[in-house]
């Protein structure tokens, strides 16, 4: 019950935020200098043709009318036609979004699966060599943006030592009928193990590059929180009751430390979407971020607005999930009403 109330409140605010984002991005897209109709038709189009294009795009109408058109179309699931690919923006997004999500979700999993344990180990052995090594490494990963790591990793593991492919999502010899757009899932649907492994091989390096700074962030955050937790009386109590250091770390210190980390990690997870822009470009990953870069350079209004809307929505959904997770892990939030 209480979780449902919480969920519905969060959903309502999510819708509100999305509305704000839509207004903002709609205006910004129209403030960027340059005439989209002219760019779309090219320099040789006649003035009449451009005029005609402006009318089809409603660019001759006042801003609020343009926005009304946009929202009306949005509710019908229509984001307009991309001037860049000449296809409905929704079709483009449906094609490119799964590749990005695949990359980002995998990077997020790496961030949590590697970052949290690293932080926990660091806190458990604080002041000893394992802690020092982890701290230096994680400081390195957070000090450079993910696109730098992408370049470094490509050079090291694809170019000098060709362990990983340089670009693409799957070996060119393998063709998989798209069902969900997620290569890892589609290969399994098609029953192609070789395809699945190839796809995993392709996605590993870009996902790792994308997740590196997140791993560092998650590890450092978990370490700091867990060291704080180690100061708590309930850890001394666990020690007084003779639980092993391992059990204390894994059970008594880790879970309470996770609560403050999780919110930040959720934000980091969403930030991966933004970082994916450059990583996708470096790895020639056919995802939404690369599409986004293309359409911005082309001043493709509909596609820009569509892409940003989808990314914001994904961001908000990620936050929503994290919020729910936090309330599941933290009994203080779950039972907020019962405690005095």
């Amino acid at each position, binding site marked *: 019950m209480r979780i449902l109330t919480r969920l519905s409140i969060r959903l309502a605010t999510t819708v509100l935020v999305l509305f704000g984002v839509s207004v903002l991005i709609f205006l910004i897209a129209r403030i960027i200098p340059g005439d989209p109709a002219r760019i779309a038709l090219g320099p040789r189009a006649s003035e009449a043709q451009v005029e005609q294009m402006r009318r089809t795009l409603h660019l001759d109408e006042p801003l609020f009318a343009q926005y009304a058109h946009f929202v009306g179309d949005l509710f019908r699931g229509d984001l307009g036609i991309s001037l860049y690919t000449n296809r409905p923006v929704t079709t483009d997004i449906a094609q490119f979004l799964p590749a990005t999500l695949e990359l980002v979700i995998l990077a997020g999993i790496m961030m949590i699966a590697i970052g949290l344990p690293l932080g926990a180990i660091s806190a458990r052995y604080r*002041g000893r060599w394992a802690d020092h090594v982890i701290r230096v490494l994680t400081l390195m990963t957070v000090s450079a943006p993910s696109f730098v790591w992408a370049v470094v990793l490509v050079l090291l593991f694809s170019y000098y030592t060709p362990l990983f492919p340089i670009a693409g999502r799957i070996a060119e010899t393998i063709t998989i009928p798209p069902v969900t757009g997620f290569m890892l899932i589609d290969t399994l649907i098609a029953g192609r193990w070789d395809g699945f492994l190839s796809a995993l091989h392709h996605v590993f390096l870009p996902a790792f590059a994308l997740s590196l700074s997140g791993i560092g962030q998650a590890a450092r955050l978990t370490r700091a929180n867990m060291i704080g937790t180690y100061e*708590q*009386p*309930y850890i*001394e*109590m*666990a*020690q*007084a*009751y*003779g*639980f*092993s250091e391992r059990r204390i770390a894994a059970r*008594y210190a880790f*879970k*309470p430390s996770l*609560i403050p980390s999780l919110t930040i990690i959720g934000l980091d997870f969403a930030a991966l979407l933004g970082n994916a822009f450059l990583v996708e470009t470096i790895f020639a990953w056919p995802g939404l971020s690369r599409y986004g870069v293309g359409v911005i350079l082309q001043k493709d209004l509909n596609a820009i607005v569509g892409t940003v809307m989808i990314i914001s929505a994904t961001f908000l959904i990620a936050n929503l999930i994290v919020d729910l997770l936090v309330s599941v*892990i*933290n*009994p*203080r939030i779950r*039972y907020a009403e*019962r*405690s005095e």
Partner: protein
Amino acid sequence: MTAQDTLDIQNLRLSFRNWSGSVEVLHGIDLRIARGERVALVGESGSGKSVTARIVLGTMQETPGARVSGRILFGGRDLDAMSRTERRAVRGTAMSMIFQDPTTALNPVYRIGTLVHEVLKRREPAITAEEARRRGGDILREVSIDDPERVLDSFAFQLSGGMNQRVMIAMSLINEPQLLLADEPGTALDVTVQAQTLKLMRDLVESHGTSVLFISHNLGVVREFADRIYVIYRGRIVERGPTAAIFEDPRHPYTRALLAAIPRLTGGGIPEIAERSDSFLAPMVAHEEVMG
């Protein structure tokens, strides 16, 4: 006689090493607790009473920079001769501890029932959740909790301080330890609740035959609880004797100062006590003891 004793501390010293040398905190403490006896160690903060409990427990020795010497016999066994694993095995089973603030000493992300189950697993690793729940319910009833089911399903922050204190007492006794270390129990609670829970704890350790080392800064709290008292001042025992003797005939200047420090309901203002006095460093006074 030593075989009878639950705890026998001989010439216990503790020092901390730091970059400028080392600082001695305990200067040779001797303390005995007979089977079923309740002994209080009383002194001001920084006197070394809490570290003594932590040395007995064995957690102090794991602190970097701490050096401990002397002998501690627990039920006749030399604790220092044990391996780390053996010592750890004693904790939570044969020896347990109660902390100052019950609410912060209970892990906030687990239900009381889970914590009780964890503690029971220290003695019986294979114990099932249902069995743990039944045993938990029994011991909670022993500390006068009428609705153990609700308490077992609660988190510490949902219960009052007094309730948490009862839970702590129950958890510390559930494995039937021979020795209970109580470090300023209930100091974080208000006085009425502290009095209630102390009474409970007293009755319980009496019926279970548990020996207790009760650490406190307050002689008044100790009076009703302890059979014998050790007064500690700056790492040295300054006076020891049966509770009645200490109260009726305090001989060491520091003990007298401590007694004078207990606020009285009858008024008289805040007692005046010297911050530090050379007389506090006078040699130890031992009262005649009648040992059972």
